[in-house]
């Protein structure tokens, strides 16, 4: 641990920290410099994340260490804090940086002027996210959750206004309660297992005595509740659509990935602590995850259908996406997790893009137009003579791009062909209906849930899209700047790339999933080969 290249692992945390600190010193008035610094920081993070992703992917191929471990303060992993970079962390880093870049560039058009200290808070937001994805220590995860949350309060309420502040304060109260649960869970796990290092924990679950196991599992369950609140699982996620819908476009885009942090934490810790090597505890709570995920999909779909407001529609879609991921993870199969990761990637990008897009298409529309749409549906539209006006209306280029983006978003969110979320849904379902195996009721439920949620989304998105693009007279031109539409196009373009490159993408996701389900390499990477053999169970 001495080469400069080793420090790259921690750089995704340090870069935004330094950038944020420098922005505080520069002051809020010097926006252009702040903006420049912010973009530079995000671009550096993106480059770094891509480099780390390639590194994480390559090392497996050579058969050397599969994880990069960074021991902070040069203390042994046994009691120091470690950062661990594996495929999953690298993937999440790349997604964060992409979303960060898109949201930041978008915000430069107008949002960053809507309130004080947007730029440093944005950097702290990224720092928290990156840290949460990188850390290999349970308490350090809490710390980065806090960094992420503290900044997200600012993001959610950025720009003020009654609705935003009300939703933001609800969000704040719920997250404080969540943090409390997080702390209770962590301290119970520490009290029983005696360590905070995740890799070390993995080995300490199996040998626990019965009466100790109950307490550890209770701690894990409470910790899980904290993560599930973040992920927005029913009935813990009612705050989510409201908060996200009330937030401004660029802030909403970046905090939309926060729900995926909850999913990430479940994925990481559940498979590490209660994977195959956990002895009696193996698979602890899996059915709850599946059930909770299914209920979340159901509620999310209902919310998607019931919504009258495009921003809230985006929020409701976050619920559907969280539910899908939780249910897929809960089914506990390697293949399904691989598909879920592909779904996660495309849903992060699509939802981020949609939050940005919503603001663009809503611009210049009359207030209350959404309510009218539903009323018109209920009471029938104005009956115009179908024989008249059989000459189409030319669509200006900006509207055409917005419309195309909206369509792409709709397809991605609904999981319809031809884009990546369809492939991801296929990748999740195919292993459940693998030839020769038996199909469980859970698999059928997931199949039905995915189909019905897709249907609900398409119904709702069609309604919204028709109302926005086809009913509004084309004379009202939305004023959209290039730096606003470019981020949307970037994010959606990446989804298209994921579709075309589904082969390599899926190979990466499968490899990630295999590592998650057989965490021997992870454990060995963090605490050395000696400990890996004991109790962490069979690995491929």
């Amino acid at each position, binding site marked *: *641990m001495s080469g*400069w290249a080793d420090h790259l692992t921690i750089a995704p945390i340090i870069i935004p920290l*330094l950038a*944020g*600190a*420098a922005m*505080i010193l520069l002051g809020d008035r010097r926006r252009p410099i702040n903006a420049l610094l912010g973009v530079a920081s995000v671009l550096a993070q993106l480059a770094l994340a891509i480099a780390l992703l390639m590194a994480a992917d390559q090392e497996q191929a050579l058969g050397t260490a599969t994880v990069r471990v960074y*021991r902070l303060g*040069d*203390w042994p992993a046994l*009691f120091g804090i470690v950062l661990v970079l594996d495929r999953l962390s690298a993937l999440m880093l790349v997604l964060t940086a992409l979303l960060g870049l898109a949201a930041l560039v978008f915000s430069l058009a107008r949002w960053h002027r809507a309130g*004080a*200290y947007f730029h*440093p*808070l944005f950097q702290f937001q990224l*720092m928290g996210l990156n840290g949460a994805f990188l850390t290999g220590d349970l308490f*350090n995860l809490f*710390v980065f959750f806090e*960094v992420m949350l*503290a900044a997200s*309060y*600012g993001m959610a*309420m*950025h720009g*003020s206004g009654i609705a935003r502040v009300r939703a933001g304060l609800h969000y704040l109260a*719920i997250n404080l309660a969540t943090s409390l649960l997080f702390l209770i869970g962590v301290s119970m796990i520490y009290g029983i297992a*005696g*360590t*905070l290092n995740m890799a070390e924990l993995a080995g300490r679950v199996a040998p626990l005595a019965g*009466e100790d196991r109950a307490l550890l599992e*209770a*701690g894990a*369950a*409470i910790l899980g*509740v904290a993560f599930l609140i973040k992920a927005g699982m029913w*009935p813990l996620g009612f705050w989510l659509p409201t908060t996200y819908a009330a937030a401004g476009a660029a802030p909403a885009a970046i905090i939309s990935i926060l729900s995926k942090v909850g999913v990430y934490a479940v994925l990481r810790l559940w498979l590490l602590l209660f994977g195959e090597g956990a002895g009696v505890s193996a698979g602890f709570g899996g059915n709850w995850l599946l059930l909770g995920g299914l209920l979340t999909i159901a509620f999310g779909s209902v919310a998607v*259908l*019931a919504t009258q407001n495009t921003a809230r529609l985006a929020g409701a879609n976050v619920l559907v996406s969280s539910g899908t991921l939780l249910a897929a993870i809960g089914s506990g199969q390697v293949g399904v997790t691989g598909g879920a990761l592909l779904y996660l990637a495309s849903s992060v990008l699509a939802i981020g893009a949609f939050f940005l897009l919503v603001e663009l298409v809503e611009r210049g529309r009359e207030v209350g137009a959404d309510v009218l749409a539903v009323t018109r*549906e209920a009471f*029938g*539209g104005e009956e*115009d003579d179908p*024989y008249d*006006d059989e000459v189409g*209306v030319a669509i200006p280029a900006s509207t055409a791009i917005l419309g195309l983006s909206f369509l792409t978003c709709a397809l991605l969110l609904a999981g*319809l*062909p031809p884009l990546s979320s*369809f492939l991801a849904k296929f990748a999740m*379902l*195919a292993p459940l209906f693998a*030839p020769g195996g038996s*199909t469980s009721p859970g698999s059928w439920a997931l*199949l039905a849930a995915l*189909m019905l949620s897709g249907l609900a989304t*398409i*119904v*709702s998105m069609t309604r919204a899209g*028709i109302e926005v693009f086809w009913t509004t007279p084309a004379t009202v031109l939305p004023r959209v700047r290039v730096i606003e539409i470019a981020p949307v196009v970037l994010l959606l373009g990446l989804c298209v790339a994921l579709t075309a490159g589904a*082969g390599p993408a899926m*190979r990466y996701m499968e490899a990630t999933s295999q590592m998650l389900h057989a965490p021997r390499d992870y454990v060995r990477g963090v605490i050395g080969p000696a400990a890996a053999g004991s109790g962490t169970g069979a690995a491929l």
Partner: protein
Amino acid sequence: MPDALILLSSIALPFLGAIVAGLLPTHARNAAAWLAGAIALSMLAFVWAAYPTVADGGVVRHAIPWMPALGLDFSLRMDGFAWLFAGLVSGVGALVVLYARYYMSAEDPVPRFFAFLLAFMGAMTGVVLSGNLVQLAFFWELTSLFSFLLIGYWHHTAAAREGARMALTVTATGGLCLFAGVLVLGHIVGSYDLDVVLASGERIRSHALYLPALILILLGALTKSAQFPFHFWLPQAMAAPTPVSAYLHSATLVKAGVFLMARLWPVMAGTEAWFWIVGTAGVATLLLGAYVAIFQLDLKGLLAYSTISHLGLITLLLGLNSELAMVAAIFHILNHATFKASLFMAVGIIDHETGTRDIRRLSGLNRSMPFTARLALVAAAAMAGVPLLNGFLSKEMFFAEALSAQTSQLFLLQILPLAATAASAFSVAYSLRFIHGAFFGPDPTDLPRTPHEPPAWMRFPVEILVLACIIVGILPAATVGPFLDMAAHAALGAATPDYSLAVWHGFSLPLLMSFIALTAGVALYIGLQKQLRSAPDGPPMLRSFDGRRMFERAMVFLSWRLARTLERLLGTRRLQPQLRLLVCVAILAGAIAVQVRGLGPGNVMPSGIDPVLALVWVGGAACAFGAAWLAKFHRLAALILLGGTGLVTCVTFVWFSAPDLALTQLLVEVVTTILLLLGLRWLPKRIDNPATRQAEVVTLTRRLRDLTIAISAGAGMAGLAYGVMTRSPPELLAQHFLARAYTEGGGTNVVNVILVDFRGFDTLGEITVLAAVALVAYALLRRFRPAPDSVEIPEQQRDQSAYDEARPDRSEGDTVADWLLVPSVLTRLLFPVIILVAAYLLLRGHDQPGGGFVAGLTASIAIILQYMIGGTHWVEDRLRVPPLRWMGVGLLLAAGTGLAAWFFGRPFMTSYFSYLGLPLLGEVPTASALVFDIGVFALVVGATVLILIALAHQSVRGQRAVPRSSEGRAAATRVAGDD
């Protein structure tokens, strides 16, 4: 020509063309048409190039790996059956493009139209050429999507929007079902590859999941082919431009459903379930469509229902489980495509040249557009099944099959021929109505435009298609024979039956049925004359049974009433229920987890209870109860009581020898309590609205419920804490810290070494949290405008001002100044002392209780005191703490200490300590951690002061809103600045 080129070009060309067309200028009408035409023709050429291979029973294949991890290739496969469809798609496509060039108005932004049309062409080719079922479902949904865009092309009309939405909703739902069905089928077969699936008929039919798979796949096929009860979307789709109707809604899109059923026929048909589902849907659609078609007023509506009926016929043929019927079905698919596409185009010409499609307004067009009339007449005759035209041949085959259907249900054998004849009679009647209504009778009056023949090239596609109807009708075996044979062999394989394509089969029962149908149809039309002339749109008896209206109502119910009710029932937007749920779920999670395993005693024996500590705790608990009790009614008292609980916690830490924790707890208590007190001023007054007060019982129940939850949560937490604290794991992190704090961390205060060294990274994160929180608080409060009821100056301040004003020798604010004289002197004297204590705490932190965090809090207390006693203006005139600079420097210092390790080739945050010889002080233990601690100190001071300033300036700004505030402020400044 290589297979790959043929297949990939057929798929890729239209999509590429779509992109190019989409980029053309808005009114590049000719360029777009030429492009689309060229692409359709070259597709046709590519398809034709594959003919030699497929004609020999060969299969053209090409696969590109797509998601190899899941065994999914992008695989294209063309056999005779797919070839026929691909030819249909590209051939009719080329004709439609030509037609559309003349049909669409010059002002229309046609590049968009052609872009969608080409994309649809590509998607449809994808459906027929897919070599695996997942890919088929993939392109299937794409056809729905482009159909949606094409129907909605004239989206400024409500009909187009509604039609497009309905078509998409119905067909996309079907597509999702198909996808699910494909997954189940893949589960049964073990592969999604079409070749493998087609080879596993026995396995599929005998599998336990056959029925679910069948139902799901059929849902997809029947919705797409507009079969009863999903037929209602097709008439609504007629809002599309007529070329779209001719192409999608007669020749291609709607044929995708029957294509799929025919494709899977060899492996899924042949069962009772297939017969019942497919057959029933087919019969019902056949009869219903034909019957309703008679009563349509819109010519396109008539054709739409006729299409539904003919699709029903094809479906019925497929449902009969007979190979011969299957051949007839394929034949009828072809025939229907030719005559129906030409009829749609003819209607388009009528619409284009007269300005209306209303059958009541049209008549006698035979005189103004004689050539078009003849073409339409032939095509309509083919539709009616008149001999010597292609429609007659497949209808004869249908009659023969209806007579010889094999089924266990005997009564069906009597019903089927009857139904077939009746439907055929209906079709004669609506064909007659179409021709007679539009082309014969008196000259039309009151038409929007004066009718005349269309441009020659616009009529050309119709001529080609009608010519095909005639040639096939007269010489079937010589023209369509080889192709049909090839398609049938490809679809059925060795099971292909012998059949004869001939116009004359001698006098037989089918011929008699044809004759009856023709006669009955003519009679029916004549009989209905009077009624048809006056009747409104829609069929008698079924008029109120409007599929569109029902669909809309269902959608409104589902997506509006039901969804909103459910959302309200299953969710909430209020905070309190959400927090209640959160606590309940956490209780349940913990309780269930403990319940499952059972809890045993720990390995650490609890020590005895010390009465003094117990007493302290009783006090603390009382404070906590009091705080909860008063939280709603008396915020100030609640806050003070909360401070009491905090103090008890602090005493507990001291009791158990944790001076660091105690110190931190004490300072945190002080700072937070003061900041909260400052914020309390701006909270709105308690809202007490007697009108909305609930009944006593309800309130009581709610409180009891909340009490129960609170007690369970508290007791549960206490139980868990007790459980954890009476256990000591064999290896605990803390042991390492204790052992190495001095030897490796260079400090004797273990807590501090943990904070700045072992887990310094956590501290770095936490100070970032503090920085972020301070920024958020500032950003929020900067825009904050207090509630109107808290803007008012407090009563005490008013009284004081009134007292001052009443006396000439006093000026406003003097009373406050008098009152605060002693405290202000004291705090000013204390200021340097507190700062010194802070410095002391900071420096000794590594070895003794103290550290940067505690020191920072201490220093900020000093500043807070000045603000409280001296007032904002007085302090800021004298003491400038630029909080942002402190925060920025603090963060950079802390991070920089971590970074410095990089230059020594060590990881971030690696610490360094040694003894430094300083003048006067001698040997001083120094650690890099001290610099880190100074960073923490600076940040804590900065963040606390920033929050304080945000709150303090709130008072300044808040008073500005009140009249006479400027004097008040001046007075306040003077009060503070008196000394």
